[in-house]
């Protein structure tokens, strides 16, 4: 058996892979295919670690490779990046997962490269780093604005790209609509190899991915477009938005040659507003007209009711947000 090698959160390295299961003294020794056998943990872990299990403490595992992370996930460990969502589990009346899997040690997930053809954004990239890195690029400026205005500065220093888009229960993600508008692809590691999913497919299937995939990075094809992000939080800043519109547009001689429009925070999951895209392509780039067209098409959404805003309100502000996104680009298109 080719045992995996983990560091526990407590800092102990184990020569033979192990982790506790469901806070019992039974551990699983597993190989890189994910095959596991149950053994008594006393064979492999120190007295102190056993005490941890007996005390009912949880664990934070720190895999040293993607294979190790996938193997641990197959046995129920929950990956964490910035941990800003999982640490709020008690507020949602949910238990904290017993085994967390810190991805901090996976160096490839921290990579961020932008060249003329592609922007490759590692899953562990924090919001504040994304905002700084993407801001100079017109086609990526919508995503930069999304990353640079979400939540508040303290959260942005910790919360990551991968953690944000993996959280299917979080409807008000700023990154999700911005990535849809950017035509992003999510690269996942799975037990059967890497998988590339268009952002839309990823969002539709992520809740069902369970322990089956680890987000490695997001790739965005570069193109001569302009992008903008408009959001409406209840406070001026430092809050989640009740509605978001992200656009990425190509304008030739004042006419919209192509446009992608994505809406976030209105429905449980962000999505493209294709009916409006079809209506605007081939027309003049006109913020007022775009708002008017949007107002005719809001009934295509089933807006969510939540404590921050009722559904009707989210729908009523969408056309305004679209106009604001258009206005942000007007000088440059």
């Amino acid at each position: 058996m080719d045992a995996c090698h983990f560091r526990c959160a407590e800092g102990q390295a184990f020569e033979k892979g192990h982790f506790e299961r469901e806070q019992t003294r039974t551990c699983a020794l597993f190989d890189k295919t994910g095959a596991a056998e149950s053994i008594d943990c006393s064979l492999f872990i120190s007295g102190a670690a056993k005490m941890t299990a007996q005390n009912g403490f949880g664990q934070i595992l720190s895999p040293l490779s993607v294979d190790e992370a996938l193997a641990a996930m197959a046995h129920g460990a929950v990956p964490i990046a910035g941990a800003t969502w999982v640490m709020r589990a008690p507020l949602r009346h949910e238990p904290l997962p017993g085994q967390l899997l810190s991805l901090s040690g996976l160096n490839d997930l921290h990579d961020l490269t932008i060249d003329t053809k592609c922007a490759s954004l590692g899953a562990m990239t924090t919001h504040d780093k994304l905002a700084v890195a993407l801001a100079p690029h017109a086609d990526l400026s919508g995503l930069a604005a999304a990353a640079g205005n979400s939540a508040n500065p303290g959260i942005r220093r910790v919360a990551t790209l991968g953690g944000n888009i993996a959280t299917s229960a979080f409807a008000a993600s700023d990154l999700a609509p911005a990535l849809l508008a950017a035509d992003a692809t999510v690269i996942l590691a799975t037990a059967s190899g890497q998988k590339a999913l268009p952002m839309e497919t990823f969002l539709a299937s992520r809740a069902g991915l369970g322990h089956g995939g680890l987000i490695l990075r997001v790739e965005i094809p570069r193109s001569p477009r302009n992008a903008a992000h408009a959001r409406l939080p209840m406070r001026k800043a430092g809050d989640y938005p009740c509605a978001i519109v992200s656009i990425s547009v190509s304008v030739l001689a004042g006419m919209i040659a192509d446009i992608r429009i994505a809406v976030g925070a209105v429905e449980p999951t962000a999505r493209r507003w294709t009916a409006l895209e079809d209506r605007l392509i081939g027309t003049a780039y006109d913020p007022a007209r775009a708002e008017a067209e949007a107002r005719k098409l809001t009934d295509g959404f089933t807006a969510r009711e939540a404590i921050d805003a009722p559904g009707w309100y989210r729908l009523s502000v969408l056309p305004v947000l679209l106009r604001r996104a258009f206005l942000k680009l007007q000088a440059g298109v």
Partner: protein
Amino acid sequence: MPIELNINGDTITLEIDPRTPLLDVLRDRQRLTGAKAVCREGFCGACTVHVDGQPVPSCLRPVGMLQGCRIVTVEGLAPSGTLNRVQQAFIDHDVVQCGMCFPGMVMTLTEFLDREPSPSRDQIKTALVGNICRCTGYERIIDAVLSMQTEAAK
């Protein structure tokens, strides 16, 4: 297995669940009560501390992820018995009201002023969007920060 943390320059060792928020370790184990437990969801900023020089909400940082990091709380910003320049400005301008937000404000502003020594009023407001003052004492806080530039220019 013990967890080792570096807090205000001291190395401490704890037998604790690694998922425990740093905030709880600071307040309950170390009696460093400057960081306040208010919203516990990263929105109020009252629990802000520096981790490797960055102001972050300690309520959302599990201690198991912080081994090897340098943690500084409001108690560790200046040598014992002294104040740093933001703390002194807060006193000079009678900024502190109920006292819940100001340690977090001090942590945020200390790092911000290191990066941006001569900020505008709007820049200060932007820096503070993650620090909520329930006494709504924002303007005096901002005045205090701006006064530091005036004092420095004298």
